[in-house]
């Protein structure tokens, strides 16, 4: 029998996995928050990017907790809206748009393969870019575009999801480094973009959690500040 709500319904096991990944991102942001705050020189040097991302991801985890008991047909839409409403600061609002785009394109039940991941990141990119008249280069948006490009490049290759995410993290590291030269303000301050650094912290945490790697911070590979 067909169930009109099946496509938006999220199974308990999937929700538990998403929650585990979100929690890994939250813990990583808690560790990296001050470092991200310290990078925040653009657009307003008020040093709150790390805090804004942390509060936004904390709200996201709370929304997942609240949803755990109910598998409503409107779960995806309600969840995405709640995160948008609770987002903090510019970087938090953009992150919540990325989450909305990814959630809208996520497959209903089958595992996330190359094409599905590419579709999720393309939708995330489109959502992120949809709400700004003139996107500035060297921001979290530039990183999002490169992640989406990388997922599309790899979409037909056969590889486990862990390896796919590892490739995205690697591309993300390069894209983050490029923000120094994409923005004059960042170049003069000698830093990478704070919002992009925060998004990469989240992605790296998710990739590690999925791969089952121990969460040991490899400071040398973070390259958040110029050496």
């Amino acid at each position, binding site marked *: 029998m067909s169930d009109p709500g099946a496509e938006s319904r999220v199974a308990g096991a999937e929700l538990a996995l998403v929650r585990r990944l979100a929690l890994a991102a939250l813990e990583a942001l808690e560790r990296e928050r001050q470092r991200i705050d310290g990078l925040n020189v653009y*657009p307003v040097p008020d040093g709150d990017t790390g805090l804004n991302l942390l509060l936004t991801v904390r709200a996201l985890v709370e929304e997942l907790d609240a949803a755990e008991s109910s598998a409503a047909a409107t779960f995806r839409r309600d969840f995405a809206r709640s995160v948008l*409403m609770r987002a903090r600061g510019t970087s938090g609002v953009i992150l919540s748009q990325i989450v909305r785009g990814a959630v809208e394109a996520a497959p209903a039940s089958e595992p996330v393969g190359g094409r599905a991941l590419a579709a999720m990141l393309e939708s995330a990119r489109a959502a992120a870019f949809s*709400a700004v008249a003139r996107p*500035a280069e060297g921001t979290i948006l530039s990183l999002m575009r490169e992640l989406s490009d990388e997922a599309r490049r790899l979409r037909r290759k056969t590889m486990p999801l862990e390896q796919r995410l590892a490739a995205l993290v690697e591309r993300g590291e390069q894209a983050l480094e490029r923000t120094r030269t994409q923005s004059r303000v960042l170049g003069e301050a000698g830093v990478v973009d704070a919002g992009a650094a925060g998004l990469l912290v989240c992605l790296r945490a998710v990739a590690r959690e999925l791969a089952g790697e121990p969460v040991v911070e490899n400071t040398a590979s973070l390259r958040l500040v110029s050496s």
Partner: protein
Amino acid sequence: MEAIQLQETALGQLLVSSRAIAQVAERSLDECYGVVGLGRGARIRRAFALRRRHGVEVVAAEQGGVELTLAVVIAYGLNLAEVAATVRSRVSYEVERVTGLEVARVEVRIDDVRSGS
């Protein structure tokens, strides 16, 4: 057109037009996340308020500095208060950075909400 004093020197005043300040504010608005358009125009409070069709009004504040009114269209689905707060902080930072004038007051008026492009 209204001219706002930047500096008073022995050789004379340095002035900047409110139009120039509005241009700076407009450029900054275009890059504000959540802003997908400019409003129909700021409320006209004085006869010499300018560029009403572009949604930015600039007037000299009585106690020095400038007052800005920004009329914007925001992307549907976003938290309006959060976007308005970031617009205020970003535009006033940019106007202060470029002109050196104090931004005494910023009013953000959300004229409309629509789906992003």
